[in-house]
């Protein structure tokens, strides 16, 4: 075998035994370090999961949404405005949408009710793909709905197969459930009821020929900004939202939140780095003696530095694996319960959904550079100080 490789393996072996001999001291560093990495990694995984979910949500939204504004509030938009948009070149389809919130007094839950004409959506097949079971109701039929999983659970508890809702005049409207959404899209669909647009108007008592907003589908994404501008000019008094605008707002908010939290976590990291520095530089008489013995026996300064380097790599490697594993478990199995207070904004919007973080090398590299690198940098000087203990202190008369 290569001599230098063997040399490094020997030194690594020595570093391992040296860590083990000082296990009490190293364990405390390891525990605190794992905890810091756990915090950083948990937070990174949560924000990543939320960002990705938001992005997937946005992928299914239309390129442009048109809402009518009155006194700064959103009001219903008459369907005939769409005729005024017909002349704009590049619009593929304009789909009216009726949606709103429904408070179910029996279960005490808020449902999101959305009425669309599925046949007019260019992405109907995608909607079908998000269903766990059943299918989308066909366009003509009334009294049918596709629901989210939490609503189905409520129905199952009641032992009912029909979804019964009440109109504002308290008359009952019943819907046959034709399909249920998949758990992967829970963040969006957990409390969602999708039905025929006319049924939705009927349920909310919205006059015919009105909709909550208009979804404008555009064939060429490059034309979206131009078309949005033209729509805004053609329809004064409306708010025109493009998907990328919404996306960017999300990004900035998510990014800001995670950044803010990173700053808080950096404080924890700083505290840890100070601890690491302190632990590494407190050279006990035994350690000093050990190094002077090693050096007089022919160990170079570089060899002792290599021992210290491997010790640092081992400690931070173990802490990194430990911290990241715990963070993953924390986010996936415990729903990031430690961060609930910070994430309160999201948890109110999307009650009870499962976070599914994706494993990306980039995430771990990020956590690595936020935790392991500062640790290694903090231990260079103490490592060198210990490695430069002179050999002659091992002699008696020196």
């Amino acid at each position, binding site marked *: 075998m290569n001599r230098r490789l063997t040399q490094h393996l020997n030194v690594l072996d020595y570093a391992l035994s040296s860590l083990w001999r000082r296990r009490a001291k190293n364990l405390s560093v390891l525990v605190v370090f794992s905890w810091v990495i756990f915090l950083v990694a948990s937070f990174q995984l949560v924000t990543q999961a939320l960002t990705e979910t938001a992005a997937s949500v946005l992928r299914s939204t239309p390129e442009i949404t048109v809402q009518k504004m009155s006194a700064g509030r959103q009001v219903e938009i008459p369907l005939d405005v769409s005729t005024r948009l017909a002349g704009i070149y590049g619009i593929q389809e304009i789909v009216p949408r009726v949606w709103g919130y429904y408070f179910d007094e029996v279960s005490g839950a808020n449902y999101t009710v959305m009425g669309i004409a599925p046949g007019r959506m260019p992405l109907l097949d995608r909607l079908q793909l998000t269903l766990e079971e059943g299918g989308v109701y066909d366009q003509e039929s009334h009294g049918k709905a596709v629901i989210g999983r939490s609503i189905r659970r409520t129905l199952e508890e009641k032992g009912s197969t029909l979804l019964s809702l009440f109109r504002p005049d308290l008359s009952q409207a019943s819907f046959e459930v034709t399909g249920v959404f998949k758990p992967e899209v829970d963040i969006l669909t957990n409390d969602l009821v999708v039905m025929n647009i006319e049924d939705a108007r009927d349920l909310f008592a919205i006059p015919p020929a009105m909709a909550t907003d208009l979804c404008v589908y555009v064939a060429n994404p490059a034309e979206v900004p131009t078309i949005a501008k033209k729509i805004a000019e053609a329809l004064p008094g409306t708010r025109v939202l493009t998907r990328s605008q919404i*996306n960017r707002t999300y990004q900035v908010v998510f990014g800001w939140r995670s950044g803010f939290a990173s*700053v808080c976590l950096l404080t924890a990291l700083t505290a840890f780095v100070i601890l690491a520095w302190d632990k590494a530089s407190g050279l006990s008489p035994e350690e000093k003696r050990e190094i002077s013995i090693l050096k007089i026996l022919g160990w170079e300064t570089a060899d002792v*530095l290599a021992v210290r380097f491997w010790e640092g790599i081992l400690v931070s490697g173990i802490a990194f694996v430990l911290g990241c594993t715990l963070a993953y478990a924390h986010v996936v199995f415990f729903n990031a319960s430690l961060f609930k207070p910070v994430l309160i904004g999201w948890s109110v919007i999307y009650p009870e959904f499962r976070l599914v973080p994706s494993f990306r090398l980039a995430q771990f590299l990020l956590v690595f*550079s936020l935790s392991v690198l*500062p640790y290694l*940098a903090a231990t260079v000087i103490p*490592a*060198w100080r210990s490695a430069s203990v002179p050999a002659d202190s091992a002699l008696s008369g020196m």
Partner: protein
Amino acid sequence: MLLNSWSIALLLCGLIVLFLMGLAARSAIRVLLFWNPESDSNRQIRLENEIWLTSTLVEYALGIQIISLIVFVLAADFYSQSIAGAMCATGSLLANSFGVPALLVKIGGVFFYGFWIVLHHLDIHSEKYPLVRVKYIYLLFLIPLLVLDLALEILFITGLKPDIITSCCAVVFGDATGGGSNLLGGFTHGLSMGLFYGTAGALILLGVVLLERWQRWLGVLFSSGWLWFFLLALTVVTTEFSSYIYAMPFHKCPFCILQPEYHYIGFVIYFALFLGAFFGMSGAVVEPLRFVEGLEEGVTGYQRSAVKLSLLFLVFFVLVSSYHYWRYILIGGEG
């Protein structure tokens, strides 16, 4: 966009490197002022110890710089999500005029720190430490580069605004016929492929000759050949090979191959290329040191292993980077 995890990680890396190199520079100044190999005074003993400190510091700084280079590219990819028109790192790097310079300075930094470490290892091979002054003056010259690196990085990050509209890889690296400005136009497919494989072949040939017997002018030719090949390879990977990796004829981008969708193949490609180029070029860089007393043996030894390593990485790089291309040519698109 200073307040997100990626920016913070980048700045943290930058500050750590600056901190480490600052300490190294402090030692460097002390060594330059007080180094006296004739003395056995406490100060000289301390300075001899500080040589180990500085080399360790620079080695750590190099390691962190490499990681920060990767983080920088991945961060640019992350920023692209919130910049209009950007779909990958290319878009965000072009979103303001500091992105590309920051990347180039970072890459340069990796090479320059690497050369310092080569210098250091040659130096400590000789009992007289003949390069002590040279290497510490060199180290002091690295500091401005480092400050420039950090400054460009900060300017780049703070200059990123979500409302800036930028062009992305499809436009920048796409065919000239596709409209928009083409950054790397001018080479036809046949010419660039011919140059790529021709240069690689010539380098291998030269390297084998050099391993047989080192000749100065051949060594210099080998190293300049590597510099040329390094730039050529970056271009060819971007404009030719990348679209075969993406399996999309109009997707040409040097950064997307780093993504997990393509099994991180970009990391393998760039690591091989950078290491090969580093060893290939450093062979001639150390040539003048052959005349320094006590270094001849070390220089010869280093040049031999550098040529060997550069050839190894060259072959590996050519195989990995053109794998998708040849598979497409030989087997066809799907499968």
